């Protein structure tokens, strides 16, 4: 009985707190995306530029580690039995990728553009070694180009 109560508390807390932090994070992501909209980050390797006007080109990296709450982990576990789209992990990955891109852009403060942008994802944490999902890390990197003013 004690186990069951503990399990239900974890489940309820996971759902409540998880939903609340997710909403808050999305609000922050939208705001910052709007603010950094002026800085293009593109995947093209080469862009036509007048080389004499390029002042600096540097590597910029942004990374974010995000964990999934207890409720969503259980939901994904249930989904693993039946198969199908694991919807409960979608926001996790979406948030991690967008947060990493934002941090990369914040790192490239003053640049005119970021080219050759790549995003990579990996699972980390103790559970990751047992083939289970613990937290995920998204890392975004690219070349920031600063032009002569």
């Amino acid at each position, binding site marked *: 009985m004690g186990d069951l109560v503990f399990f239900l508390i974890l489940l309820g807390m996971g759902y409540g707190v998880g939903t609340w932090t997710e909403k808050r994070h999305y609000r922050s992501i939208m705001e910052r995306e709007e603010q950094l909209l*002026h800085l293009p980050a*593109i995947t093209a390797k080469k862009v036509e530029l007048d080389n004499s006007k390029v002042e600096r080109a540097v590597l910029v990296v942004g990374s974010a580690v995000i964990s999934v709450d207890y409720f969503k982990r259980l939901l994904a576990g249930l989904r693993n039995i*039946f198969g199908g789209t694991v919807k409960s992990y979608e926001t996790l990955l*979406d948030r991690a990728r967008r947060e990493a891109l934002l941090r990369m852009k914040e790192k490239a403060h003053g640049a005119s553009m970021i080219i050759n942008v790549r995003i990579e994802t990996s699972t980390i944490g103790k559970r990751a070694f047992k083939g289970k999902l613990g937290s995920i890390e998204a890392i975004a990197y690219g070349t920031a180009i600063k032009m002569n003013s």
Partner: protein
Amino acid sequence: MRFIPRQSSGNVNVTKTSAIREFLILAGSLLAIILILYLILGFVIEMVIPHLSPRLEQAMAVNLLPRIVGSETDEAKSRELQPLLDRLQEHCTKLPYHCTIKVSPSPQINALALPGGTILIFSGLLDRVASENELAFVLGHEMGHFAHRDHLRGLGRGLVFMAISTALFGPHSQINKLAARFLNLTELSFSRRQETSADHFALEVLHCAYGHVGGALTFFEKLAASEHSRYNKISFFSSHPLYPERLHELQAYSRQHGFGSGKLTPLPDDL
């Protein structure tokens, strides 16, 4: 090519969905599947039990018994009672087991038939037994459960449930530990039909061993009287319910087979 920065509206990477609804659907269907499997395997167990060899049962018992019996058994009393059980089993039954008796020091008025041929008898019941005949009736009743393999039926479904949860979630998962709690091995419940046929078996044993069935009815009457006067619930009746028909059934069966009553054999002095 001109690059125009623009915030995209909406998010294709995240499905708009209600997590609670998805959870209820998934958990509900999982429960339904487990329930269906449980019912099906319940029938399978019914079919399998008659073919289960006593040897396999003994192998199962190795893991199960310590959980039920515990370490506290009264070895001296157990040894004292074993000859009576051996005599009853040898001369009056054809059980595929070698039954052993274990006395547990507990005020419970109860006796249990456990997998592998072990009869667990609580000292609370021993204290209330006045003659060897009464004790023989209790032992005969439990041997009746062995003969009809009722003790496995009570256990079977619980084991099936454990097997399902182990297969789905692994042996060390929380859910499996939770399932193990539902498997209360000491509260095997038997149906009326099973109790009645175990009673018949006990009467046959009594008649074979003593030439009469005296003691069988007195024991029940005594327990029933003490149930009304002192205890609200006596566990021998909760796992072996005493319904009004049971006494009549015993009397009817005795009359039908010409089993009379006779002189009671006293208990050995040590008990």
